[in-house]
C-alpha cells in the first residue's frame, strides 16, 4: 500500500529520481512515523471505547499525540515526515468516500438546490463574525500592549 501511495505522490510532484538514496532514508523514517500514527489511532480507539466518548477515535488519537508533543516540546522527526507526506495525498483518500454520493441521489434530486443555498448563505455570517472578532481583539490587544503589530 505504502508503495502505491508513494508512487502517486512522487509522480504527481515530479520529484527528481536522482535522490534515490535520500528518498530511501526518508521513506524508512516515514514508515516509522506511519507506524507511530497508527499506534496513536489505536490508542484513540481504545480510549474512545473505554471512556465511551462520542468524539471520533482519530481525533482522540490526535489529541493524545498533541499531548505527547507538548510534553516533549518538540515534534518527533519521523512523525513529522509521515504527517507531511500523507497530508498532500488527502484528496486521494477522500475520493472513495465522496463517491458514495451516488447512493444518495434521491436526497440530491429532492433537496440539491436548497442544500446549495444553505451552504452558501451560512458562509456569510460565519466569515463576518470571525473577521469582526479578530478586528476587535487586535484593537484591544494593541491598546493593552504593543503586540501583533506585524500588520
Amino acid at each position, binding site marked *: 500500500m505504502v508503495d*502505491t501511495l508513494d508512487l502517486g505522490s512522487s509522480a*504527481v510532484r515530479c520529484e527528481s529520481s536522482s535522490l534515490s538514496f535520500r528518498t530511501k532514508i526518508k521513506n524508512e523514517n516515514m514508515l516509522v512515523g506511519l507506524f507511530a*500514527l*497508527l499506534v*496513536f489511532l489505536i490508542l484513540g480507539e481504545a480510549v474512545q471505547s473505554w471512556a465511551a466518548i*462520542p*468524539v*471520533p*477515535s*482519530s*481525533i482522540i*488519537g*490526535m*489529541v493524545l*499525540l*498533541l499531548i505527547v*508533543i507538548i510534553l516533549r516540546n518538540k*515534534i518527533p522527526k519521523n*512523525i513529522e515526515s*509521515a*504527517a507531511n507526506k500523507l497530508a498532500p495525498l*488527502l*484528496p*486521494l*483518500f*477522500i*475520493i*472513495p*468516500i*465522496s*463517491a*458514495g*454520493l*451516488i*447512493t444518495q441521489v434521491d*436526497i440530491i434530486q429532492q*433537496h440539491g438546490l*436548497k442544500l446549495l443555498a*444553505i*451552504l452558501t*448563505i*451560512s*458562509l*456569510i*455570517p*460565519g*466569515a*463576518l*463574525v*470571525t*473577521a*469582526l*472578532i*479578530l*478586528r476587535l*481583539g*487586535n484593537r484591544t*490587544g494593541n491598546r493593552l500592549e504593543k503586540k*501583533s503589530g506585524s*500588520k
Partner: protein
Amino acid sequence: MLTDILQQPTTWLTVTLGAYLLGQKLYQSLNHASWLPPVLSGFLIVTSLLWLTDTPYTVYKQGGQLLSFFLGPVVVGLAVPLFYHFHKMKKQFITILFAITFGSLTTVGTAIALAHYWISIDAITSTIASKSVTTPVAVAIAEQTGGISALAAAFVIVTGIIGAAIIPPLLKLFRLGSPQTTGISLGVCAHAVGTSRAIELGQEYAAYSAMAMTLTASLHAILLPWLL
C-alpha cells in the same frame, strides 16, 4: 471477462488512483483553479465510471476503502501542524481562538437552522453540521453522529469551493480584509480548499488559514458529537 474485472477491488483502486492523477494534472493545467480541486474532478471521474459500468458502490468500496483507510492516520497527524502553529502564534492565540470558536459556530448554527426549517430531515441536519471542517474530520464526525458520510464529504467540498470564491471579496466589501482576517476566515469556513486559495494570496494568509482550519476541525470534532 469485463464484468469479472469490474468486480475486482484492484480495478477500482487503480481507477481511483488514476482519477486522482488526472484530476491533479487538470488542476495544474488550469493554473490551480479553485473551482476544480483534484478531489472534485477525481470524484466526477470515478462516479461517472461507476454509473457507466453500472457498478454498485458496495463493489467499488472494497477497492476504495484501501485508500480511505488512510484518513485515520492523516487526522492523527494533524497534531503536527496544530502544535507548530500554536507555537508560532502564541501571543494572539486567545483572540484567534475566540474568533475561530464563535465564527465557526455561527456558520454551522446558521446552516443547521436553515436545514432544520427548509428540509427537516434529521440525518441531513446532523450531516450539515460538519460542513465547515476538513473532509477527513467531517467524515469521522458524520459517522459518529449518525449523519451520512458521503453527504458530509460532498457538503465540505462544495462549501470549500464557494467559500474560497466569496470570502475574500466579501471581507473586502466590509473593509475587514487583511492577511489575518481573510486567512483565518478562509480556514474557518472553507477549510482545505480555502487554505489552498489562501496559499495563492500569500504566505501570511496561508499560515493563518492552515492554523484556523486545523483548530476548527479539532474543536468541532470534540464539540459537535455532544451537541447533536
